[in-house]
């Protein structure tokens, strides 16, 4: 159900809504993580083209992810998730090898503590070990006391319809993962020790190039007091660095935690979807550099169609866990201009499961505030009038 339709919520073509009278089709990204090979060409191409400074030289230990997150200095971020889960391999990768238990959860938990100052605000947020462990298919026993993830025999991660954490699905008779028990004490002993006698056989390595979502309803833009953030004729959202005054309202407004501030200059920075390239009829740098067409750029309608076909093809090929994220115009942000095909739940990739534009309730709030103000005024008047009687 769509709440009261206004330009802050619900399906919408954002460019005409923003006043572009001759806007072309809305342009965007479709990132198909099922063909991502984690080469990070997107990150490099983005930095080269947009002259984005480095985001620190820190080994984060988060698999091959040393970028950590989308920040003011990283507008593309390739996440790597190692999980002891099936990945449609005909034979599990480590079947027949003398393996012990999985270490994915434990090492992810250790890595979660490695957030270093990136010179940006809030930058790479300090990780929560239990959340990091959960993302790798591990079992944060300290949180739930029960496995959070159930794995069905055909290899699909459990996917509760309500998008809630999968803990509720445990114990439904499906085989549980052979992942390590994460006991909430990262680094207390060498990983692998005391991780149980179970042997890991399944393994998969998820890779996903994250980017600004260019929401249909972009809260960052809604709250920007200077007009620095604006909606382009392509339907994308861009910060004009010469206008931004560094107030930072946009940072807390973003439901994805994308937009971020450089500490040294105070201004907000994020992906522009290569606005300058689009204007010249070129493809954004990241999509241009992507060797496997994991990042696809084009008219959003076409991309959505293509994405739906790809999901259907993957389902047919025995990859039931394939799903789209951010494609739905009726979701909490009116659909993303940059949407994704994922192979697990969004939380695993560090994405919010059910983002809602933070300005959704502004009209109602203003209405109420207005009412309240009126009531106050009325009361004040009444008090005067009443007082004089």
């Amino acid at each position: 159900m769509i709440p009261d339709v206004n330009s802050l919520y619900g399906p919408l073509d954002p460019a005409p809504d923003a006043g572009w009278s001759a806007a072309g089709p809305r342009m965007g990204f479709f990132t198909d993580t099922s063909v991502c090979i984690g080469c990070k060409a997107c990150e490099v191409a983005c930095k080269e083209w947009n002259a984005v400074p480095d985001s620190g030289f820190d080994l984060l230990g988060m698999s091959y992810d040393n970028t950590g997150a989308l920040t003011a200095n990283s507008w593309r971020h390739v996440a790597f998730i190692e999980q002891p889960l099936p990945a449609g391999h005909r034979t599990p990768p480590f079947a027949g090898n003398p393996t012990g238990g999985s270490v994915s959860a434990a090492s992810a938990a250790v890595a979660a503590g490695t957030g270093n100052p990136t010179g940006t605000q809030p930058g790479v947020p300090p990780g929560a070990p239990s959340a990091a462990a959960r993302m790798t298919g591990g079992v944060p026993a300290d949180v739930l006391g029960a496995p959070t993830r159930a794995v069905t025999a055909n290899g699909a991660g459990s996917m509760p319809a309500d998008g809630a954490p999968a803990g509720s699905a445990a114990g439904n008779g499906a085989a549980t993962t052979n992942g390590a028990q994460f006991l909430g004490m990262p680094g207390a002993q060498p990983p692998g020790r005391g991780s149980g006698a179970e042997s890991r056989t399944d393994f998969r390595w998820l890779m996903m190039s994250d980017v600004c979502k260019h929401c249909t309803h972009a809260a960052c833009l809604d709250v920007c007091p200077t007009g620095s953030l604006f909606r382009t004729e392509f339907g994308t959202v861009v910060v004009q660095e010469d206008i931004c005054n560094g107030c930072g309202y946009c940072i807390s407004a973003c439901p994805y935690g994308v937009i971020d501030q450089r500490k040294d200059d105070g201004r907000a920075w994020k992906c522009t979807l290569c606005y300058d390239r689009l204007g010249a009829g070129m493809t954004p740098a990241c999509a241009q550099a992507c060797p496997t067409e994991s990042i696809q750029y084009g008219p959003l309608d076409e991309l959505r169609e293509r994405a739906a076909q790809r999901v259907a093809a993957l389902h047919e090929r025995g990859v039931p866990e394939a799903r789209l994220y951010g494609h739905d115009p009726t979701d909490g942000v009116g659909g993303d201009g940059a949407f994704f095909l994922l192979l697990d739940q969004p939380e695993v990739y560090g994405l919010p499961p059910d983002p809602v534009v933070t300005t959704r309730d502004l009209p109602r709030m203003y209405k109420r505030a207005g009412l309240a103000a009126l009531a106050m005024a009325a009361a004040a008047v009444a008090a005067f009038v009443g007082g004089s009687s």
Partner: protein
Amino acid sequence: MAEAHPVGFQWVMEAKRRGAKVFHVDPRFTRTSAVADTYLPIRAGTDIALLGGVVRYILDNELDFREYVLAYTNAATIVSERFEDTEDGDGFFSGFDPETGSYVQDSWQYEGHESDSGSGHTAKERDSAAGLRHESHGAQVSGKTQRDETLQHPRCVYQILKRHFARYTPEMVERVCGIPREKFLELAQAWTENSGRERTGCLIYSVGWTQHSVGVQYIRTGAIIQLLLGNMGRPGGGVLALRGHASIQGSTDIPTLFNLLPGYLPMPHHADHRTFDEWVDSIRHPGQKGFWGNSRAYAASLLKAYWGEKATPENDFCYGYMPRMTGDHGTYQQVLNMIDGKIKGYFLLGQNPAVGSAHGRAQRLGMANLDWLVVRDLFMIESATFWKNGPEVATGEIVPEQCRTEVFFLPAASHVEKEGTFTQTQRLLQWREKALDPPNDARSELWFFYHLGLRLREKLADSDHPRDRALLDLAWDYPTHGQHAEPSAEAVLREINGYDVTTGRPLASFAEAKDDGSTAVGCWIYTGVYADGVNQAARRKSRHEQDWVAAEWGWAWPANRRTLYNRASADPQGRPWSERKRYVWWDSEAGEWTGHDVPDFEKTKPPSYRPPQGASGPEALAGDDAFVMQGDGKGWLYAPSGVLDGPLPTHYEPAESPMRNPLYGQQSNPMRKVYDHPVNSVNPSPPQEHSQVFPYVFTVSRLTEHHTAGGMSRMVRPLAELQPEMFVEVSPELAAEAGVAHLGWAHLISGRAVIEAKVLVTDRLTPLRVDGRVIHQLWLPYHFGFEGMVTGDSANDLFGITLDPNVLIQESKIGTCDVRPGRRPTGPALLDLVEEYRRRAGIVPGRRPPMVTTEVRHPAGPSDDGPRENPE
């Protein structure tokens, strides 16, 4: 491939999209494994056992493409009765001479030809990496062979092959490689099912596959499989090497190697090639079948290109000016010679041996003992600063104030700052334009060498020393342009193509090369790249405007032929094997070969042609001799000569291994090249004692984010930050055993060095069960060094120097080591730690491990009466 060649990997992803199954065999689970359908973890260094298992699977189940194998390979050819296989020799073929550590190859020859080719001791071939010569043509062999078309003769190649690989069963593959047999069978089945009349399979390897003491034999095993399955000379087939840099193929075609001249002409040897005629005859092998008969023209035209007007038939085209080899001048021998003070000066171009070559300490100590060193690179790399910043400064082995080497650092232009060609794995030359001017003093290699030549000639202009004539008589007159007098790269390409010296007309094909001094050709196999005076490598016709072979994109050697030996894409009668795989065929009406590609066959020689008695050269090739550069016109399942360490690939353990060879008493390749030098050492392997001092196997390779020794990535901000620190990947099981923790420090010790690295504990690595025991492998990137934005210890420091005998490539993918938690010691304590390990392992530097570990049952003896050089 996704890890090191992500751009090429897009085609694997495209194939996968269309339903292809992707198999990935690797010691660690990489970005390729992540998208593969089946991943097979393997014990490093056991690929011949795995591929040999596939050969056995093919032969045992009769899955070979029999018509193809009979017609185009030497399967039916009968081998000398004196040949003995490794199965009968406990790991030795017949003819091994323990004294020289090399094979006498007489007994490997075809029946009746025991003494007429390629025989004699092969120690000299090993020293000159003679195997490299065969990149464009097969080794010398007689064209007249005895065959048994029924393949029943016990000494026909087919039966020999069958016996040789009989023990490479799925059970043996599991025992040697640690690959469970079910997984092996999955691989073998998929590979064979995808080959035959209607389908072809392509074998793509990256050059890490070659970096073994049996590197050439790895590729040989792959080639045997491809021949058995009919995957050579056909569209979608072949064996392709993915190179580690742009134009590595180009740098062997027009070589940067000590033993080759352009077009795979051998560098003259001082003793064997005293005269021009001796040199030419050693190339063309008078009386042999095939296209090397014209090599006198290629050789004369090359010298004509070098010395121009001064080169005449009367003075043997200035052959006397040519430098001569005296033995092994390979890069590792040179480093040892530097340490010994035998080499005074050194040019380093686009290479960073202080990080990128095996035994980094030897590399740095060698370079620290020169008079002068010229480094041309984009950045101030480790090989330019080792004398002040290298690890040997910390240990006191190099004292900057006393280091005698004078280092000249000259900034180089990058590939986008100069024009020229790249030659890729398909032998395709692609011209690239200059995108921008190089900054400041940076100059192209072409500029550097041209102007260096001019200045040297200027300085020597008044010299009357005979030794300076070679330089002064060079034809050294390329047109230049611009403020820095940049030589014209197109003029160089034109000379490489070759031209008629009187008219200046560029040659259209190497058939036009003459041996009378009327043509000059810089590289005969490239003739045609400048045909009609047009830079054919610069062609950029869209694939949408031409057929799928895209013959008008760039230019491929030889003769713009995209697939070599494509006569094999048609059956012996000249008809396509199948409609689906139609490529080149015989048009009987027109009386010529035709098809999508340039036919790799004489245009009008019909399939039914049989050579007359006594024919030689191209005339001796029959109408179904598809492998026209082979002496017998056949693809070689069995190599009677040309491969120094055996006519068939055999599993040997790496030079450093924690395992006894499960297949043979002979532990490692008995012909591997070793150097007895105090700086070098090899960790003990069974049957030696103390191998348990270095219990773990380490392997090194690339990360997507960095480029080789890091000179082009650790210095570049957006790349450096992506992999900012040296690390070692270990399995959780090894982490528990060694007591190392995720993101903690560990140090690794070999008999050469200690290095430290951050630890990544990951499920992507796994222990393997091999021959009843558990083997732990760990993985290191080899990109790090002490210069740049991100630094770390160099993985290659751990390696010693052991080389493949055929091409002298180093075994730098496998070594043994120990792992300890925490950081390494610094200063002299570091040397003490290495010394302690050496003592415990019984290593005496400079003393080689035993080369022969079993009884040699069929040694070279008096009956081997072929031509032989004196072993003294």
